[in-house]
């Protein structure tokens, strides 16, 4: 059933000098599903993310992205900004990386850079104020407005992103990633630092992105209530290798997973065992 997989990670290796951060990791993410990547601190989750989104060039292995139209793209060969531009993979960051001195609306406009660049005729049409450019800009503003509305920040559109509350910044970053119109959205700990109500809202947002946009989601998360509630598939990592995968239920009861969390951090182990019960 490989046609259902949007992302296939095949024996991914990532070495930093003598340290093997990711060792022959293989997993797949299904199309229009939410896949969670979990594991104790230092398991190599963010490294996997950085490989998928082109911030690192993997030492070995393959990362394949299968588009709806049947195209398959080898992400490890693209690298850098082309992953977002051509392969349509968007990401957010563990420590929020907005453009703090720009307004929320401007942040979403920057995200539509490539589409707007084409519309502005590589700046020249835009410089003379061609009607086609004006129309494209209006459409971009409308798309941004739609997403601001979806994440509940429409009233803050003209405020500097750096002035928003922490939870709002998290949602704005997701909206910004969605403005690149991705097929795969990679979220690095989207619920970190959110309170219970906010992470509940985040769950709804992610489910609606999956259901309405049909965007596949890959997320790293420590907040087990988020993982257990919304993921369709969970991959558990420890020390750079996959130790388990399956449905949230199956993973939660897996003794290897419990052992990994117990060995690493007692609180997290309790969180794993208690969540959902």
């Amino acid at each position: 059933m490989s046609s259902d997989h949007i992302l296939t990670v095949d024996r991914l290796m990532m070495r930093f000098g003598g340290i093997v951060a990711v060792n022959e990791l293989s997993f797949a993410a299904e199309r229009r599903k939410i896949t969670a990547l979990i594991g104790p601190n230092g398991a190599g989750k963010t490294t996997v993310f950085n490989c998928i989104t082109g911030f690192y060039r993997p030492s070995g292995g393959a990362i394949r992205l299968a588009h709806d139209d049947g195209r398959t793209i080898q992400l490890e060969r693209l690298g850098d900004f082309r992953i977002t531009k051509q392969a349509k993979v968007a990401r957010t960051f563990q420590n929020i990386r907005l453009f703090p001195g720009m307004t929320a609306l401007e942040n979403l406009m920057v995200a539509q850079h490539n589409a707007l660049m084409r519309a502005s005729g590589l700046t020249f049409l835009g410089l003379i104020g061609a009607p086609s450019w004006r129309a494209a800009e209006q459409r971009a503003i409308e798309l941004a407005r739609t997403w601001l509305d979806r994440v509940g920040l429409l009233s803050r559109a003209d405020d500097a992103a750096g002035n928003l509350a922490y939870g709002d910044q998290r949602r704005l970053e997701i909206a910004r990633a969605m403005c690149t119109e991705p097929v795969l959205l990679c979220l690095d700990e989207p619920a970190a630092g959110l309170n219970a109500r906010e992470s509940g809202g985040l769950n709804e947002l992610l489910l609606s992105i999956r259901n309405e946009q049909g965007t596949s989601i890959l997320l790293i998360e420590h907040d087990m209530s988020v993982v257990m509630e919304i993921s369709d598939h969970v991959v558990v990592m420890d020390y750079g290798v996959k130790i388990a995968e399956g449905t949230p239920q199956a993973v939660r009861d897996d003794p290897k997973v419990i052992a990994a969390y117990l060995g690493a951090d007692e609180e997290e182990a309790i969180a794993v065992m208690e969540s959902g019960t």
Partner: protein
Amino acid sequence: MSATSARPSHAAQPSGSAFILKKALISAAVALVLFSLMIGVRTEAGPQGGLIYWTRFGDLAALVGTVFGGSIIIELLRQWWGPVDKDRIVPKPVQSAMSFAGRWLAPALLVFAFLVPVIFYNQRYILDLSILVLTYVMLGWGLNVVVGLAGLLDLGYVAFYAVGAYSYALLATNFGLSFWVCLPLAGILAAFWGVLLGFPVLRLRGDYLAIVTLAFGEIIRLVIINWQSLTGGPNGVSGIPRPTMFGIPLTPGDDGLAAKLGIEFSPTHRIVFLFYLILAMALLTNWVTIRLRRLPIGRAWEALREDEVACRALGINVTTTKLTAFATGAMFGGFAGAFFATRQGFISPESFTFQESALVLAIVVLGGMGSQLGVALAALTMIGGFELFRGFDQYRMLVFGIAMVLLMIWRPRGLIGHRAPTVFLERNQAISSDLVKEGHG
């Protein structure tokens, strides 16, 4: 001490006489170390060529005593004044008056600029000074694209100014091309060199970028000095043709503009023409920059200044974005250089030293990085103010330096530090300078 840091620490601020005494003693000790060599010992070449020296311990003691006393007085004054607060330094009515003035400042300046040749028609000195100020306004606006918008610290901007000037000078003297043909060519050549500089420095950030651009500026200058067969080396290029008003020369001859219009020839005509030429070029720079800011490329520049990693994650090609910033800034520098060459009629490498780069960068930083109006005001302050202090003779640099330091204490983020958004839904509100990043790449 800035207003923000003073407020929270106010309650905990030490205020006893022991604290004041300690502070004064430290200041006096620093003064003693500094002045003991500068003032305390005086050396001079003796009649036999040997070095003779004598001591001036009295003067030294007086200076150290002044610093000690002054420190106590300043500390007492500070405690008497209380916490530094914006409302106390600048009262509310003054603030509202200033915001009113701020709204009308740009249009008023523009109208004034257009009227300068009319008002000061007979004052050649003022006309020349205004042309100089406008040249620096244009250079400042050009560098503002690189430093203010894209956040790339460029210490070698004068290189593009030189490329523009020499492009025009050499094309005009060797091939007889007119100013209006050479102007775009000078811009294109400067932009080309901008890209050439951009490539090796793409990976560099902050201090490293500054050093390499500084070196680039020096390389261009040294090439000009040493490539004697092309550039004339230190002798420069002379006999550069004056600009024509679209083919009509501004000369006293029969085919000159004055004869054609049937008015009496005056050398001031050319100065006025040059004034309006640089004004038009500067305004073009301004218009293009304002337009670019609202286009995706301009937003990408500002996003790059804010966070390069986030830009990459959004699929923005950081390489081309940086290169276009360098090229655009360099192009404006090239235009300004071509104007400089045609105004002077003579150029030599001496006009393109590091000091020029530093001056233009100071204008951009002082104006508030990214602000068009701020840069114009800063150019006026720096170039005009420098002339204003001419009466102070040998203390000119000292007074000027103190004025700059005070200005930076008063406005640490430049004259106009806040940022205007490029697009808005309902409210067009300025963004506080605290949030806007300076860039580090």
